[in-house]
């Protein structure tokens, strides 16, 4: 057991093996139900409600059969026409003829590739769900048959209805949220994945143009360089900065938040409530307002530059070589190195209040007996901080740190609002891929879709971001939140 926990990959491997075994068992059970089932079970292969009706549960039987009929209607009128075109994503391009005399427009019966794609994915999803339901149904009928064979009580129609708000109420309650998650999260992700394999870009914009499948060529473009393809180069650079940024942003705000909380919590600090409130005010102002204002403050001709140049700070920076000599301002947000530095600094300012709030709560709960005994034993403040406070805070906030890290990988606001319209990349190769040094994968993705309509490359990047975030989350969660961690802390 111990060893397994040390190696998350091994655990994952075992998980996969169990998963496939489970699938095997699932279908074996289905086969058994079909073979050993009585006439009712066999009839429900065709009419899904038959199994229930034969056993007296006609209400359930009718309901299930209605679902089956609805599914068949859906297949004929919705799934079939869309899925028929799924292979080609449509072949008839939109053509409109305007009659200048009647001022009416005649449009041909065109294919909207995007709708075909979207509807096909929804249809496929429904079909898979139905197949699962179908298998479940046969098994349930077989269970019912077994119950009858063993002479157990079989629920009446009334009891069936009652159970919906009774012992099966959790299913009733969860059905709506589940549907919401499927509509809003699962299906969009599948659509996103599908688009990564099409040529959806500026030259192919539905509804007026058709889309085509292009296989893995978009992925190839992102991972290779040369031949007028700059995506590979830009991807490497941006991925590097994204990870650097996520680590820096998470650590600086985390440590800063703890230090600030400790400072305010100190017994010698006067008016702790006032200080705390002041920092919380920073949260109360919408972040994008703060960031846009800060962007203007730090503009090349902005107020901070005016002050710096008036007090001679700009010249001093020039003399030590931090600002190149031909500039008469500090390129806070326009030079690659300065901009990265400033983004991290500004993020500390924006992010610390949140961390301070969390840290305050955690610090207040540190067992005082430990701190006291350490003090009696003569441990220095520094030692107490590193040996007691930090381990405790890390233990409590570990999971939150991972969430923060993933959130920072996708920290769109800070980067985009601070650099959009201000930052121009000096690297021609990056510019050719519509990227900038300060871009995160997610801001690059956003600008690719929003400014260049390059949905296909954006989808590929989206998938990569998803994989990166998923891998980090899985690995660190399996390491950090293992079951017996509490004892380890002690």
């Amino acid at each position: 057991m111990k060893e397994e926990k040390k190696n998350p990959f091994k655990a994952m491997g075992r998980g996969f093996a169990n998963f496939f075994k489970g699938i095997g068992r699932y279908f074996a059970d289905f086969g058994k139900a079909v073979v050993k089932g009585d006439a009712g079970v066999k009839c429900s292969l065709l009419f899904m409600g038959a199994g229930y009706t034969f056993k007296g549960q006609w209400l359930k039987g009718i309901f299930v059969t209605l679902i089956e009929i609805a599914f068949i209607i859906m297949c004929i009128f919705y799934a079939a026409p869309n899925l028929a075109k799924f292979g080609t994503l449509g072949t008839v391009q939109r053509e409109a003829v305007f009659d200048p005399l009647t001022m009416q427009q005649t449009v041909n019966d065109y294919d909207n590739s995007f709708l075909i794609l979207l509807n096909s994915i929804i249809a496929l999803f429904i079909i898979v769900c139905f197949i699962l339901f179908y298998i479940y149904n046969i098994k349930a009928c077989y269970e019912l048959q077994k119950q009858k064979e063993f002479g157990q009580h079989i629920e009446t129609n009334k009891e069936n209805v009652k159970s919906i708000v009774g012992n099966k109420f959790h299913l009733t309650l969860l059905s709506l949220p589940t549907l919401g998650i499927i509509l809003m999260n699962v299906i969009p992700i599948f659509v996103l994945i599908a688009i990564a394999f099409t040529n959806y870009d500026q030259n192919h914009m539905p509804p007026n143009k058709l889309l085509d499948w292009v296989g893995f060529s978009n992925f190839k473009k992102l991972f290779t360089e040369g031949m007028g393809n700059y995506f590979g180069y830009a991807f490497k650079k941006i991925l590097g900065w994204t990870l650097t940024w996520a680590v820096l942003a998470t650590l600086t705000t985390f440590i800063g938040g703890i230090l600030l909380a400790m400072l305010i919590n100190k017994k010698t600090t006067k008016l702790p409530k006032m200080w705390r409130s002041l920092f919380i005010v920073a949260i109360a102002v919408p972040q994008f307002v703060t960031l846009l204002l800060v962007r203007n403050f730090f503009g090349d001709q902005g107020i901070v530059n005016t002050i710096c140049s008036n007090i001679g700070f700009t010249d001093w920076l020039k003399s030590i070589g931090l600002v190149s000599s031909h500039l008469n301002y500090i390129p806070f947000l326009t030079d690659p190195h300065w901009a990265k530095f400033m983004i991290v600094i500004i993020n500390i300012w924006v992010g610390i209040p949140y961390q301070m709030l969390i840290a305050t709560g955690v610090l207040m709960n540190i067992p005082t007996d430990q701190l006291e005994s350490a003090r009696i034993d003569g441990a220095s403040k520094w030692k107490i901080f590193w040996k007691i406070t930090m381990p405790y805070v890390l233990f409590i906030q570990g999971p939150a740190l991972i969430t923060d890290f993933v959130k920072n990988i996708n920290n769109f606001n800070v980067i985009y609002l601070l650099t959009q319209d201000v930052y121009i990349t000096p690297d021609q190769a990056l510019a050719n891929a519509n990227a900038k040094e300060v871009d995160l994968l997610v801001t690059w993705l956003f600008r690719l879709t929003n400014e260049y309509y390059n949905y296909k490359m954006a989808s590929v990047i989206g998938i990569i971001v998803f994989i990166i975030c998923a891998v980090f989350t899985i690995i660190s969660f399996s390491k950090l939140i293992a079951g017996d961690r509490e004892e380890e802390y002690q």
Partner: protein
Amino acid sequence: MKKKFLALAMATTLVAGCLTGCGKDEKKNDSSSSSGTTGSNSGVNQEAVDNLISATEGTVSLTVWASEEDQDFTQGLIDDFKKEYPDITFDIKLGACSEADAKDTVLTDIEAAADVFTFADDQMNELVNAGALQEVVSTYTYDVKAETLAGAVEAASMDGKLYAYPMTADNGYFLYYDKSVFSDSDVETLDKMLEVAGAAGKQVAMEVSGAWYNYSFFKGAGYDVTLNDDGVTNSCTWNADGATDVAQAIIDIGKSSAFVNANDADIVTGVTEGKIAAAVSGTWNADTIKAAWGDNYAATKLPTYTVAGKQVQMASFSGYKLIGVNSHSKNVGWAMILAEFLTNEENQVARFNARSLGPANANAAASSDVQSNPAIAALAKQADYAVPQRVGGNYWEPANTLGLTLISGNPDGTDLQTLLDNAVEGITAPVQ
């Protein structure tokens, strides 16, 4: 909604919560049969309008998008339009959408976009390429091609086909200067301007790191970037023989301490603070600059600059604001008539009076009122050296970077020809 939802889904990958994307019914056939009548295909065609009026049943729903600043004015015009056709029940909704990024909103979901929308002419090729614009095959209440400035018609056309109704002709850039610092002859050459500004402790500002502006240097010296027939990719001669002289000229300009590479916001700040005494900008800053300089406020065409010892006139992108009709509109006919109404001579004059926007209508533009507006007069002077903006999306980032590198004095010391070759490679790159 559908594509907006997709874009969101992409941007938020893991983060939950976006819009639902229910497919909505597609109307495949918008035509309702109506008897054809004969009539002239250009200019006024009252007969067709009468036909349309008699063929229209029920309420005509239209959505109009105009910029935030134009809301009140446009609403007034819409009310007038309703009075113009009292027999028809209109349901016209007015929405706010900046001309500068109309294409982003429209192309996100063409079917959900407004029937009639305003946009800047630099978005023409992308809108046409995506099939979002209804071609103006015929006009009904006034002859757009005949009554509008030739440049504006060119800007509203692609491959000789008219796709939009010109609304204003004031979206280009020119030179603002402070008369207390520069004389009229000073502003003829950039060299002289920098000399005078340097002596007066003031600055001359232009956003050379912006592709929209730095085009001025290359085009002026005869090096061009043009849109290919596919409507998406570019051809570019910025790395041709002798172009390195232009690059060197920009580097030299950047070396002058009196020159500042400043973006729009910084120009406004600089002018207000009194640091900047001359700036290359457009009519959108006219009020601010006028307020800062008062009686010394003046404007003229761009100056000349020195390329390999010779004076070269700086060129520019001309800029027009246009009104387009959505090709997916359910009421194309009425949308076209409304677009004509919003851009006819009377209303262009009204727009100038109410909002100081320079008309694209030839008669309106020739009026003495319009001509006496310094900013619009300066644009008219620059018009001889201005060309409509016809460049594909890949122009911007590489040209931004090239401008930045040059105006910063080429910090890495890259060979100029290599620098230009790299930029041109990016500008002419196919859509990837």
